[in-house]
């Protein structure tokens, strides 16, 4: 079963849902794409470096098997989900909790 792949899709869908429920709507802003591009570029460099150095052992039965070029495609989706969730949380906090956390 490609469980890792499915979890990534669920995480991305959940983030998209929260982006609208919390009315942050960060993904429709152009700056989102610029920052995401930079995040992915960094991840491609660092993740592939650490994977090449042998930090991780990936279970190929749990994922599609597409490598970019060393790391699984799912790692990039994981990174996008982490990026998206973080930015939603930051924007939500900035707008709604700014007075709580001075």
């Amino acid at each position, binding site marked *: 079963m490609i469980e890792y792949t499915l979890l990534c899709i669920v995480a991305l869908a959940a983030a998209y849902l929260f982006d609208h429920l919390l009315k942050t709507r960060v993904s429709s*802003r152009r700056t989102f794409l610029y920052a995401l591009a930079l995040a992915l570029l960094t991840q491609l460099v*660092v993740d592939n470096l*650490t994977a090449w150095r042998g930090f991780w052992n990936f279970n190929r039965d749990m994922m599609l098997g597409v490598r970019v070029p060393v790391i699984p495609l799912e790692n990039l989706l994981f990174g996008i989900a*982490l990026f998206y969730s973080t930015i939603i*949380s930051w924007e939500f906090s900035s707008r709604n*909790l700014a007075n709580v956390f001075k």
Partner: protein
Amino acid sequence: MSMFWEYSLYMLAVVFGTVLVNLVFRLKPLRKIRLLISSILPVSLIFILWDVLAVYGGHWSFNMGHMLGIVVINQPLEEVVFFFAVPFYYITIWELSKKFFGGKK
């Protein structure tokens, strides 16, 4: 050859570089440190939980030869630090891109 310091070195580099970018461009994240921590924390906990379950479920495992050897549940300490350091980096580049390309929209 033992490279147990390798992962922690990468994490130190991420934190150091991110703090530097914040200082150079006078960005909001480092100036609003409590807001920063409060927004990172819930996301970190969810993704650490994902990582813990993924290791239990056998999706991936760690090669401890590159890590300090301090384990929290089933996570190397560096991996836990990752889920705080990287969101800090993400928020910083988000604020940076708002500053240079953003405006209101």
